[in-house]
């Protein structure tokens, strides 16, 4: 009599009753799991420096205004810093909310709707934030009136 084969745990066999997404999704969930750890580790550095520079150093929150942002984004260093932070934080957060929706929303339609709203918000926020970083103008002219600041050319 042949020895019964016992598959290793996590071998991909899930009782059909527990499967919410029929068919194979490849190794998307493993990539997502790994992404959370890698992006998380990077975000700790990016966000702690962000908080230190904006809220602890200098005048802290009282020093933040349009000129403060202009001063930071005059440097490609902070543009890339903020861009990386925006993308990683949004993808990390979106995946976290996706997991929470999958955990608590039991109806297929509820999950679909919640994730639809989530992904739409994510795309809007990431595109908006990226455009803002790259199209920022430290000396805007609004309705023919030039912004006055010591770093702007005299009108």
């Amino acid at each position, binding site marked *: 009599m042949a020895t019964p084969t016992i598959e290793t745990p996590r071998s991909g066999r899930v009782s059909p009753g527990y499967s919410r997404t029929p068919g194979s999704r490849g190794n998307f969930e493993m990539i997502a799991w790994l992404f959370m750890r890698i992006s998380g580790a990077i975000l700790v550095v990016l966000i702690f420096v962000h908080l230190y520079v904006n809220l602890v150093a200098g005048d802290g929150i009282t020093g933040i205004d349009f000129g403060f942002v202009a001063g930071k984004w005059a440097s490609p260093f902070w543009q890339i810093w903020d861009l990386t932070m925006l993308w990683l934080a949004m993808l990390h957060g979106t995946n976290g*909310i996706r997991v*929470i929706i999958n955990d608590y929303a039991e109806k297929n339609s509820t999950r679909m709707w919640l994730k639809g709203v989530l992904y739409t918000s994510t795309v809007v926020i990431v595109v908006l934030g990226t455009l803002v970083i790259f199209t920022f103008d430290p000396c805007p002219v*609004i309705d023919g009136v030039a912004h006055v600041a010591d770093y702007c050319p005299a009108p």
Partner: protein
Amino acid sequence: MPKTLSPTGTLYRGREGQWSWVAHRITGVVIFFFLLVHVLDTSLVRVSPEAYDAVIASYKNPIMGLGELGLVAAIVFHAFNGIRVILVDFWKKGPKYHRQMLWSVVGLWAVVMIAFSIRHLSHVFGG
């Protein structure tokens, strides 16, 4: 007795493991919703300097100042506990020391938050 069977409780095993997981989820959701708002408020720099300064001014009032303290508390916990989760997953002895690591997380969090509170509240309340 209800006619249909439904879970009567959702407590898993309690203690450090489950509660840190609960706290990680709650802080994660809080941070995510702030992030959405934060990108929107920063985007006002493309509307006009006055629009940005007006909204940022609201972040400087005492009530919002306390809110920022809560936000930073959530971020610092999520960051430190996230490192703990990474260690539990990738460090050979991680699962064995997950409780001790949680108390280290809480201790470090307290130290960082005491220092940050003094600094931030003195800015907000004009010290």
